[in-house]
């Protein structure tokens, strides 16, 4: 019995209970991950991080949430009030919705009912996740637009441009998973990985592209241009305060958990144990798979934190260039390779044809990289002839200045003269 069949006979009360549990898990994970992130980043910077509120500072995020809730809820005079209020709700709702299709356990006994910890199993589950992520962008862009202020507008535009661009790379990186698993349903993809290796290894380039684009997608460091404090104050949420700000905060972290969960599902075998520890899946009547699932999600979360602790923020144009000129072409090329390999294997061609194809691909890639390298070198070595000096007076070019004269003559000094 697969997950979809198991879920089909769930009574209404179980579905409701599961929805509540999914919501609670997201909120609790957010609170815990805010704490975890602050602690880990602090250790990376030789600090301790929050350790005052509760044991080890565990309820620090909860205390911050309470503080936010008690703050004055301000709506700027120039804001479009209705949109301003709706925007954070859209963001948060979309973030939570993505979690509905994540298979968190294998078959378990849930209050006497044989089921799986997955709210629903859509045949196009992964597309659904991408769709909710896109809806989340509306929250960001509307928040920026409705604030009636410059920085939020810029931040909102940046953020939406970023999410839209990286969604393409993300979507393309998922195509090869679809090709290999033959399904778009999250549970089928998890099941398909049991018969082969994890797709994180089989489709390693896809995995890398997904991992990069999920950071871009969630507006996280080093791709947190939308909230670049040094340039845009707070980005799209500059004008937000109190609970509305808390909602954006919640949405960001739920999004991180959601993309991590998707990465786990698609590339790291979902709720299954790591190879060699398969016997643990039977522990606690199957509930132990939940621990495996969250271990993998937390692994991705740690990567998020690690990136934030290590890398400086990218410049906007570099970021866009990377997305459009590197990630998207590479994923397209990779899809081509994967599709061809898949075709060769499904039509049961001989091994030699696979190897010949792989050899040709390697040769093409090597050829392209050599061509790129040599053109780079040529460009660097090129000497531009100096243009003839114009007939009119021009300031000297910076490269021509070899000395700066600092005169001590009082009459020549700039600035205030009394």
């Amino acid at each position, binding site marked *: 019995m697969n997950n979809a069949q198991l879920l089909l006979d769930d009574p209404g009360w179980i579905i409701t209970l599961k929805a509540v549990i999914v919501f609670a898990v997201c909120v609790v994970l957010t609170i815990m991950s805010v704490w975890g992130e602050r602690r*880990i980043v*602090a*250790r*990376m*910077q*030789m*600090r*301790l991080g929050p350790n005052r509120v509760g044991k080890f500072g565990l309820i620090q995020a909860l205390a911050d949430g309470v503080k936010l809730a008690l703050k004055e809820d301000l709506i700027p005079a120039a804001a479009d009030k209705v949109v301003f209020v709706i925007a954070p709700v859209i963001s948060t709702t979309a973030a939570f919705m993505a979690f509905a299709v994540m298979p968190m356990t294998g078959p378990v006994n849930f209050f006497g009912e044989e089921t799986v910890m997955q709210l629903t199993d859509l045949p196009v589950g992964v597309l659904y996740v991408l769709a909710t992520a896109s809806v989340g962008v509306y929250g960001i862009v509307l928040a920026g637009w409705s604030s009636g202020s410059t920085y939020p507008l810029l931040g909102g535009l940046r953020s939406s441009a970023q999410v839209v661009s990286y969604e393409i790379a993300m979507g393309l990186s998922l195509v090869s998973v679809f090709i290999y698993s033959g399904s778009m349903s999250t549970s089928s993809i998890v099941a398909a990985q049991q018969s082969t290796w994890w797709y994180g290894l089989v489709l390693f380039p896809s995995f890398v592209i997904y991992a990069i684009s999920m950071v871009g997608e969630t507006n996280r460091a080093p791709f947190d241009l939308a909230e670049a404090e040094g340039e845009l104050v707070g980005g799209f949420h500059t004008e937000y305060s109190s609970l509305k700000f808390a909602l954006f905060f919640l949405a960001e972290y739920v999004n991180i958990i959601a993309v991590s969960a998707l990465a786990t599902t698609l590339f790291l075998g979902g709720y299954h144990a790591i190879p060699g520890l398969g016997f643990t899946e039977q522990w606690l009547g199957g509930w132990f798979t939940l621990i495996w699932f969250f271990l993998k999600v937390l692994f991705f979360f740690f990567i998020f934190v*690690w990136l934030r*602790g*290590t*890398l400086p923020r990218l410049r906007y144009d570099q970021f866009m260039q990377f997305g459009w000129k590197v990630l998207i072409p590479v994923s397209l090329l990779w899809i081509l390779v994967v599709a061809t390999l898949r075709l060769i294997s499904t039509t049961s061609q001989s091994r030699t044809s696979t190897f010949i194809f792989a050899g040709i691909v390697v040769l093409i890639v090597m050829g392209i990289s050599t061509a790129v390298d040599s053109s780079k070198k040529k460009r660097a070595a090129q000497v531009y002839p100096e243009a003839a000096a114009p007939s009119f007076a021009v300031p000297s070019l910076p*490269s021509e200045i*070899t*000395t*700066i*004269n*600092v*005169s*001590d003559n009082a009459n020549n000094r700039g600035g205030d003269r009394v």
Partner: protein
Amino acid sequence: MSDQNDFQPLVNKENKDVDITSVSYEKVDQPGAKSLLKQAQGFWVTFITMFKKVNTVQYPEVKEPTAERFHGRHQLNRHPDGLEKCIGCELCAWACPADAIYVEGADNTPDNQMSPGERYGKVYQINYLRCIFCGLCIEACPTRALTMTNEYELADSTRGKLIFEKDDLLGPLRAGMLPPPHPMYPGMTDTNYYNGDVKEAHPSQEQK
């Protein structure tokens, strides 16, 4: 490695006697990571730092000693027999750039001898809302009456509490000191006091 050493300091190379009105500069290549592996080194740095000893001091529970000459709360010192060193000259108040010190001097009388010599500080206030802890008052003090301690926990809840009176600022009575007012050490002048000839209080100094 060589990248770091290529940096050229801003000196005039042609002219060895350095001419301060003219500096020259040269274009140098920006040092950058050589390879993907070099770029990935940063990840190792942050990862290994997680297991290093943290620098954080858990302040209210753990108090690290300050630097030896840290500028903390002021103290009005005493001579070894207990007389105050402050002579009420107001030089500290005049030196203060923040106008944080208020001093009122008064005459010593035989019944009320607070310090050696003619005058003593009757009122002495330091306003810690204004004080910038620059230490100019300490430099100004001719008798070394005013010095600074290492005490830095000076926060309080009202403005009034942060104006320290003479009682708050006076140093404690140590062994061999008598609480003023009391007469000067027999046979000693104020000059002897400043030269450090008085080592402790004399029994005859004790007032009835």
